[in-house]
Each structure stands twice: as C-alpha cells, then as structure tokens.
C-alpha cells in the first residue's frame, strides 16, 4: 500500500517519508518471520539513515518531481511480464514455513547442530556471520568501505581538484 502511494506522489518529501515508513513496516514483518537481527538492521538503516541521506540529497537538488509526459504503457507491460514469469516460478516452490523444503534440509541443519560445539556462541546468526562465513563478511566490509571512499571522492575531493585546475588556468 505504502509503496503504491510512493509511486503516485510527486512531492518528493512525502515520497521519502513514505519510503521510511515502508522500511519500518517491513522491519515489523521481518520480526514476524523470526529474523530479529535483520529487522534490527532494517529499522536502523532503512527508516533512519537512508531517510536522512535522501533528505539531504533533496536539500541539494529539488523538492518536486516534474510531471511525466510520455506514457508508461511499455513499462507497465514489461513489468507485468516479468512479474508473471516470477509468479510462474513460485508455483514450484515449497509452502511457506514448511519444514522439509530444500532450504531447510542441507546447510542450515549443519549450522544449527554443529555451531554449539564448534563455536559456542548462542546467537547462531553471529556465529555464521563472523566465523563460518568470515571471508564473505570481510568482503562485505570492504564493499562498504569502497562505497564510502567513492562518496568522498564524488562529493568532497573534486572541489579541491577544481580549484587546482582553476589556479592552473589562471
């Protein structure tokens, strides 16, 4: 519902706020599906940090979306085609919450039974995150770091370079 509203609105401030509300609601849904760690992160990131970032971008750019001239019929067709394909794909999937679906039978059992002896940390999510999948998390941390470097280069480095080239020209 909230997402549909975000589609219609043209006032960007409201759109960004609705995006925050959407994140918060999805965090609630994640709690219902037992993913407390994920919900925690989603609430802090989606509803907090990303809203602030979008607002500060808006402060730097514009606050209102211009009306769209061209028709979206092609977009709607393409999107509904992709959606139908995905729906067709779900027909083979196991029921929601079923205990013997492929996702539940292989790796997760191994983690759930072995991690108390091998790691000894009550929170299995932390155990997998930092120990079993340590390489993966190292990579993710590096990605976050790289994105930070990219933002610094885009937003604060170029000004200095511009001044330098200006002084060269002058």
């Amino acid at each position, binding site marked *: 519902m909230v*997402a549909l509203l*975000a*589609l219609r609105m043209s006032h*960007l401030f409201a*759109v960004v706020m609705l995006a925050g509300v959407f994140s918060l609601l*999805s965090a609630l849904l*994640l709690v219902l*599906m*037992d*993913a*407390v*760690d*994920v919900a925690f*992160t*989603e609430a802090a*990131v*989606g509803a907090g940090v*990303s809203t602030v*970032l*979008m607002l500060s*971008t808006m402060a*730097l*750019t*514009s606050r209102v*979306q*211009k009306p*769209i001239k061209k028709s*979206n019929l092609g*977009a*709607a067709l393409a999107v509904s085609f992709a959606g139908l394909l*995905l*729906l067709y794909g779900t027909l083979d*999937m*196991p*029921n*929601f*919450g*079923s*205990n013997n679906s492929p*996702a*539940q039978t292989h*790796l*997760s059992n191994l983690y*759930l039974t072995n991690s*108390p002896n091998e790691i*000894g940390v*009550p*929170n*299995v*999510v932390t155990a997998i*995150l930092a120990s079993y999948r340590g390489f*993966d*998390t190292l990579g993710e941390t590096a*990605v*976050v770091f790289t*994105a*930070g470097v990219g*933002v610094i280069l*885009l*937003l604060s480095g170029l000004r200095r370079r511009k001044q330098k080239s200006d002084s060269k020209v002058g």
Partner: protein
Amino acid sequence: MIFEHNFIMGHLNYWLFIMLMMTGLFIVISRGNLIKKIVGLNIFQTSVFMFYISIGKVAGGTAPIFPMDMNINPSILYSNPLPHVLILTAIVVGIATTALGLALIVRIREAYGTIEDEEISLIEADEQKLETQSQLA
C-alpha cells in the same frame, strides 16, 4: 492443485513480495526523477530481502538464538539462520550503494542543473549537436 486453499495460503507471501518487487521496478522504469528512481530501487531491494527471509522461515520455529547457558532443547524448532546472515550484510551494503547513487545524483545536479531523466538527455543531445557543428566549422 493451484486452486487448493492450502497451496494458495502457502504461496500468498511469495506473490505479495513479487508484487512489491514489481512496484519498485515500475517506479525505476517509468519515473524520470532520479531520487524517485532510487526510492523505487530501495523498495525493490527490501522486498527481495523479505522474500529471502520468508524462504528461511519454519512454521512454529523461533529466532535462531540459543539460550544463554547453551542448554539446547532439541524439541525447539529454529528458523533457518543462513538467509538472515546473507540479508544482514546485504542491507548494510545496500545503504552504502544507495549513498553512492545519491552522491552521483548530487554531482549530476551540479553539472546539468536538473535531476529529471529527460531533461538531462535533452541537454546532452544539444551539447552533441553543438560539438558536431563546431567540428564541421
């Protein structure tokens, strides 16, 4: 088989998340405003996250955290912790890349004076025309 009550209730969550995904995709494709495109991308992303987590849910299960004293009751079902781990890192990487996209938008605004898709391509076309004219001259 498709019209059984059990089947529909078991798959309804997937269908809802796919609808959310498609809403996000539609925003990305059809709206010209770059900030709105990022919002659409975020909606798309969040619905993919929820889809993943819903695959890991076990009916009657609980959050995959053992008791503090590690006395594990084997009769308790735990949900699948693996999707949680994947999505946890994906969320933080997602905000970092979103920030990168927003930074690009700020630079685009400084270079072109607008953040509307079509106006940018108009300006680009004009510039190209000027360039070819100057080359001909």
